[in-house]
């Protein structure tokens, strides 16, 4: 996707250059005119959008039809997309985020954004399975009185078990934490890092049962687990209303709008490329016009900003008191770091490492090692800290080739004392040394290794349930030894339920079979990634968000 994108803009640049050449090369006007005309007659606008906007993708067609501008979306998480714009890494002409305040409170971010217009609104709310509301306690009887504090208390008491996008990568997750902190401190204005109430955050996170990076994944899991492991979903109003409408839920969700704790996504559409002002303006005018606003309200259940579209859908009309957004980077860093290193259920995972001979081909060995180095290293970027091994984490390195090798165990201490911080650095160093020492030879007994890892993880889980367990398999090739896929599936089906609840993430490089890897990850509730398309550090960031 990204490669194509880059290529397209190079092409566009080449066309523009062709156009510029018109003056300097008078003898060949016909050729240059022909080269320049596609750019003139086919105006386009590439847009980096946050992943919750996938449901707005039909706008590509609508915009094209109404304005002639070819709109092309690419999607990413809020934090990741923010970073791409901040660093200028994105080649997109425009950006469309649920919330751009992270970006726009940074002077560098302000400089990247040439123009901006808010397109629609959706507040972050708490949806609770209707039949479960009564069981949450008397505090929930009057919806207008429910605050983030009420939510945190129900979570602490083990009554509220919710799905939420990762607070370290998503706007919904992060703003929920901010809401909890604001409600507990009762502060009358924007929060700062000093306001973080660790106990309130810890209470709230006791109820965080369904973790994921994107709303589509969470919705699928929620539909499976509603009434069994989870009874609430914290997300945008639009998303929860859409789920209620979908008819796929076991029962509808009742929406609670936390009193004085509303964070509304306002979807600013931002111009990044000065050269695209004309296209941008056309698209924005259309998006804010009656047709698009009415469609957005009806199809995506977001609140329109154009009053003429207000009657398209009836939204709850109670006054929603907004939380002031804090531009304090210290607050964001503090909350996210605290979440990753202190509050979240710590991660325990087995890295199943393909050390077969074929890994010597291409740059595969070097790629794998450098990925492990970056995970155990110090990527200080906004999203880098997410990929990094965090405090309290447990890792088993399990190499395999002809057969499964011996696991090597690492455990990172909690970052509570100076000594521990020092110790954490030492262990990260050991992980990097381990990775550097990997040697590759022999065949690929992939399925056997994954099975062994699952059995071992489930044994670890039986001993300590306070961890989030998963298996991550890195491989470059077809399975050439041990069980085949059919035999693997049989053996997998025979595993105890606990072992089957552990997700397997697969990362393919080299000529690995996508189909088989996808099947395994799907079977186990994990995800498959392709390191040939996405750089390994980025893959790690994504995997972490599901853990």
């Amino acid at each position, binding site marked *: 996707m990204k490669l194509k994108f880059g290529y397209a803009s190079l092409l566009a640049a080449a066309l523009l250059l062709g156009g510029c050449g018109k003056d300097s090369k008078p003898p060949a006007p016909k050729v240059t005119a022909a080269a320049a005309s596609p750019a003139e007659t086919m105006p386009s606008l590439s847009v980096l959008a946050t992943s919750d906007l996938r449901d707005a993708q039909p706008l590509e067609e609508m915009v094209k039809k109404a304005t002639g501008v070819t709109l092309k979306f690419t999607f990413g998480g809020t934090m990741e997309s923010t970073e791409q714009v901040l660093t200028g890494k994105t080649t997109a002409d425009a950006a469309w985020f649920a919330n751009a305040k992270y970006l726009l409170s940074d002077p560098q971010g302000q400089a990247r954004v040439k123009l901006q217009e808010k397109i629609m609104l959706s507040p972050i709310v708490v949806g609770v399975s209707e039949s479960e509301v009564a069981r949450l306690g008397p505090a929930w009887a009057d919806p207008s009185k429910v605050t983030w504090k009420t939510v945190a208390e129900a979570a602490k008491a083990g009554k509220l078990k919710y799905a939420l996008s990762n607070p370290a990568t998503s706007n919904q997750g992060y703003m929920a934490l901010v809401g909890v902190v604001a409600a507990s401190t009762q502060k*009358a204005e924007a929060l700062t890092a000093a306001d973080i109430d660790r106990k309130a955050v810890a209470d709230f996170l006791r109820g965080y049962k369904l973790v994921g990076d994107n709303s589509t994944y969470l919705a699928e899991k929620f539909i499976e687990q509603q009434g069994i492991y989870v009874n609430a979903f914290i997300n945008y109003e639009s998303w929860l209303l859409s789920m209620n409408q979908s008819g796929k839920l076991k029962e509808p969700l009742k929406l609670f709008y936390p009193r004085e704790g509303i964070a509304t996504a306002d979807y600013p559409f931002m111009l990044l490329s000065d050269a695209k*002002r004309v296209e941008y303006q056309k698209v924005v005018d259309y998006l804010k016009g009656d047709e698009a606003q009415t469609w957005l309200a009806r199809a995506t259940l977001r609140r329109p900003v154009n009053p003429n579209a207000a009657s398209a859908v009836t939204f709850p009309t109670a006054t929603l008191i907004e939380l*002031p957004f804090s531009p304090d980077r210290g607050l964001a860093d503090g909350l996210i770091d605290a979440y990753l290193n202190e509050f979240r259920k710590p991660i325990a995972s087995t890295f199943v490492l393909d050390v077969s001979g074929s890994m010597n081909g291409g740059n595969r060995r070097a790629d794998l090692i450098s990925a492990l180095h970056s995970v155990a290293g110090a990527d200080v970027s906004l999203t880098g800290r997410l990929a990094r091994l965090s405090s309290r984490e447990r890792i088993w390195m399990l190499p395999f080739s002809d057969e499964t090798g011996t696991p090597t165990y690492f455990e990172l201490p909690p970052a509570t004392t100076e000594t521990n911080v020092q110790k954490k650095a030492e262990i990260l160093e050991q992980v990097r040394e381990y990775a550097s020492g990997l040697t590759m030879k022999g065949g690929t007994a992939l399925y056997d290794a994954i099975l062994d890892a699952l059995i071992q993880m489930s044994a670890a889980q039986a001993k300590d349930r306070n961890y989030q367990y998963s298996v991550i398999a890195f491989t470059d090739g077809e399975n050439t030894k041990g069980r085949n896929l059919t035999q693997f599936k049989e053996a997998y089906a025979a595993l105890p339920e606990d072992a089957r609840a552990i997700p397997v993430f697969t990362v393919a490089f080299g000529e690995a079979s996508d189909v088989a890897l996808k099947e395994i990850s799907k079977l186990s509730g994990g995800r498959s990634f392709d390191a040939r398309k996405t750089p390994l550090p980025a893959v790690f960031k994504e995997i972490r968000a599901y853990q």
Partner: protein
Amino acid sequence: MNRTVKTLITVVLLALLGGSVFWALKSTQTEQLANGQSPSLSLPGLRATQTVELSGVIALDVEPFFKDVRVTKWLGDNGFKLNVTRIGSRDMAQRVAASGGPDFMFPSGIVAANQILDAAKRANQTATQYTVFFTPMVIASWQPIAEIFQTNGLAKPLQPGVYAVDLAKLVALMQAKTRWKDLKGSQAYEVNKSVLVSTTDVRKSNSGAMYLALATYALNGNELPTDRATAEKVAKIATDLFKRQGYQENYVNGNFDDYISIGIGKTPLAFIYENQMMAFALSKSLPKDMAILYPQPTIANKVVYVAMNERSKRLGELLSTNSEMQNIGVEYGFRIADSAAFAQKAQGAKLNVDERLSNLIDPPSFETMSTMIDVVTREMAQ
């Protein structure tokens, strides 16, 4: 040079208005006449013989005016071909260039216009200001909020939906970190949040700077700070009124957009240009329950065209004097010297406004304003 022309404009205006007091220009006018330079007159309204191509950077507020077909036609008739780009007002000063910069700049207000002038001076360029329109700074609010203010002795009604709010009392209340729920009779907005006027980012926007000017006036005992030490002192105190808001929108319409689309839950009090409200009322229906608060005193923001060279002066002269252009400006929410024209438009849009604006102050001098913005910028970074 620029003073000469400004003086000229004033003279022309006074002539056109039959000597009626165009008070928005009054203070500068006196100062400039005292300057004693004699203007050289070029008559506006004469049809041009050849087309003048001008490039300009313009603020969001004046963009619809330039897009108006009557304006584009009139420009053509008068021999102008414009190539305008919309950018933030306070980014304009950075575009001042010894050569190759825009021919004119049209920011949303006087602070930005003065920054452009200052940047031009530093670059040894001549820039000339023309006040084309003006608009008072107001607080967009809501009926329940205005009533709470009235109960607490901060506001009094002028007309239905229009209130005068005591600036000094409001600033004192905010400084004291009063919460909404602590106010008498606040049942309709019993909220834990502090009473704060939301503004756009003072570091980035003209309207944010206007708010700083008003707040410091109140904090300085209803007097404009004139010396550097006082300016630094009051600006430091005023920083709190920005910082405590948390994130502030940094484009001109951000604050008003929140007011219109999210409403009372996010912006009980939004500091805006009156023209934003008026322009909205002229094209769409205003939210029910809205109210406009006119701070006592407030500032009339001048919407200033800045000619960056000789070629672009004539357009400034024309825009600020041609009655057709002036009247079209009213259709985009601006006030002009002819106050009856504005009042009539407002009535047509079913928007009650304070026509008379009896309590106005001038913004502080450019130097004082710069000092204060610098102080707030520095303090905000901490």
